[in-house]
């Protein structure tokens, strides 16, 4: 079955034309003086979605989050939450909570008091607060640390306190600003799955800001790739990776090979492309291009096969020389310099312990790929 859908089966409200949007950014512009942080951005997020805003620093993703939390007001445009326009509503009256990158735990309060802080503001009766705090402590496995102060905790524990504090009020939306940014790699990987479980368990809508593509790919239902205050693409992790709609997105997520070229000949399903240096390749997935149009063919390294002899049945096979080989344990990465000068990065999973077709520096080699292995990009 050919599908680039959500990892969570039966959860794809973005494909349902009748689904009610939960958070809506409607032509939002945010300027700081002369600098435009968010430029005419429209975005829809659905209830119970785990949504990631992914981009390099300064792309406007944090500004978007802060506007949702109420710390910044948009210069123009509207932000709707569950149908309600959020303009003019101060942060302390919004049904959203934020988990800060630096955690922003109150240093003069114990873990318990930190978690109870929001509930007290709500005017929740004391016995209920106690119950909720105990529940939250259990959820993040910090029961025995209830009486500690933040500075007596490890980084990972502080992160969990921040999380517990921000979900204690059961907000409609939880905003997470680089939630795992301050953790070391191993802890980060564990926590990613904990966050996903937590979101499922509580049934909340999560909007997470991150610059770590792996983090976004692991956790999110959908990812919005941002650049210079604009959304480049909103799609599921698989779509973002396998079907990027622009060079920027293809480059931003994972590794990619780009072949510059022109559309030479269009057939029913396939399109023949003449590379800038004369190489011919045949590809699918180029429906919207015209003859003679300048395009880029983007293909991921793991979809390129490297062999010492020309594969007999390959539609696309190009010859070159091994320029570099890197053995990474789980896979081997080859850099092949094609005869027309183009560099190609290919990776092969080391499925067995011995390589049957060993290639080394300066060996002649063939790279081959299927017509549907890559995408044709026009922008």
């Amino acid at each position, binding site marked *: 079955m050919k599908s680039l859908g959500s990892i969570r089966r039966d959860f794809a409200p973005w494909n349902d034309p009748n689904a009610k949007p939960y958070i809506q950014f409607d032509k939002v512009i945010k300027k700081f003086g002369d600098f435009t942080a968010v430029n005419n951005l429209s975005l829809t997020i659905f209830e119970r979605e785990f949504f990631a805003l992914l981009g390099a620093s300064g792309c406007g993703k944090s500004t978007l989050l802060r506007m949702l*939390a*109420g*710390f910044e007001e948009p210069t123009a445009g509207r932000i709707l939450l569950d149908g309600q326009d959020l303009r003019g509503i*101060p*942060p*302390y*009256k919004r049904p*959203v*909570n*934020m988990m*800060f990158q*630096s955690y*922003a*735990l*109150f*240093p*003069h309060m114990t873990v318990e008091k930190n978690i109870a*802080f*929001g509930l007290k*503001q*709500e005017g929740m009766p004391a016995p209920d607060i106690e119950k909720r705090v105990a529940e939250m402590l259990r959820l993040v496995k910090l029961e025995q640390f209830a009486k500690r*102060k933040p*500075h007596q905790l490890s980084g990972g524990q502080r992160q969990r306190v921040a999380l517990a*504090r*921000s979900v204690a*009020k059961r907000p409609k939306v939880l905003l997470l600003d680089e939630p795992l940014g301050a953790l070391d790699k191993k802890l980060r990987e564990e926590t990613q799955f904990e966050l996903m479980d937590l979101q499922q368990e509580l049934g909340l809508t999560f909007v997470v800001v991150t610059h770590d593509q792996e983090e976004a790919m692991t956790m999110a239902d959908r990812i919005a790739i941002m650049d210079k205050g604009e959304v480049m693409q909103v799609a599921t992790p698989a779509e973002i990776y396998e079907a990027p709609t622009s060079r920027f997105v293809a480059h931003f997520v994972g590794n990619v090979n780009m072949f510059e070229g022109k559309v030479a000949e269009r057939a029913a399903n396939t399109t023949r492309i003449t590379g800038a240096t004369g190489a011919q390749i045949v590809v699918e997935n180029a429906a919207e291009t015209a003859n003679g149009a300048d395009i880029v063919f983007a293909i991921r390294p793991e979809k390129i096969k490297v062999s010492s002899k020309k594969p007999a049945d390959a539609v696309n096979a190009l010859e070159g020389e091994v320029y570099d080989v890197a053995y990474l344990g789980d896979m081997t990465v080859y850099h092949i310099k094609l005869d027309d000068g183009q560099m190609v990065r290919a990776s092969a999973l080391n499925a067995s312990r011995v390589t049957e077709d060993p290639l080394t520096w300066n060996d002649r080699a063939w790279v081959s790929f299927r017509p549907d292995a890559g995408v044709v990009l026009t922008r």
Partner: protein
Amino acid sequence: MTNIAAAASPSAETAALPTQLAKGFVDRLVIIIPYLWLLFFFLVPFIIVFKISLSQTAIAMPPYMPVLDFSDGISGYFAGFRELNFDNYTLLTQDALYFNAYVTSVIIAGISTILTLIVGYPIAYGMARAPATVRPILLMLVILPFWTSFLIRVYAWIGILKPEGLLNELLLSLHIVSDKLQILNTYNAIFIGIVYSYLPFMVLPLYSSLEKMDYLLIEAAKDLGCPPTSAFWKITFPLSLPGVIAGCLLVFIPAVGEFVIPDLLGGSQTLMIGRTLWNEFFNNRDWPVSSAVAVILLLVLIIPIMFFQQAQARAQEQGK
């Protein structure tokens, strides 16, 4: 490897020993200097003052007896000890004047401290929240008055506060008051003088504790449903408490013993311990009683300092 190192180390140690000793001595010398300073310029003078406070007035040079010296030999020296007594301290408890002066001083210092805190906190807060480029200038402005003599600045207040002074002229010309206000030579003038003079001592520690505070904490509080005013009392103020305590003690302690401000601005009828001390010493030439007043004043001041140090130790324990 370890064997070689173990075999080699004893000779290396014996060679290093003299230099280590020398280094240890230099280290200790550095610590000894402040102790010697305190010994000669604090403890010894205090013992002398304490001894005088136990003596009797005498029309002599120096104006008290016994004078402990060795003119009568060692036995004469120790005989002098027998003449020392606590009569002056008894006098302090018998005459209500001293008790009233202490109490008035503490009350005036206390009220002034609270007023200074109320005036100083917004200033410190504003400075801490100002753009980082402006902060050094604001800090400079707070310290700037120190460049003029304290005495001259207090004299200037006489010119402002006196019945035909600048303040009254201004209020009259603006028709805010119809009669001249009597501010000079009242307790109000003392409050104004103390608040004005000690403001930097309040602002600076407050500023340093407020500046360290992470503004994200306020955002976090707001995010959790806390309106700005409430966020101030629940987050900002508790976190600035070490600064509040330091500032209050830096104002309170010198204000209790303040002499110049009550003397110049408070007029003759104000009863503060600093003035009482001055009168005993220079007008009555009663060194023993004024020494007793000074010793008691020191005790009155040492207690808040001890509180301060305890608070600081506690704050350090909290790692903040």
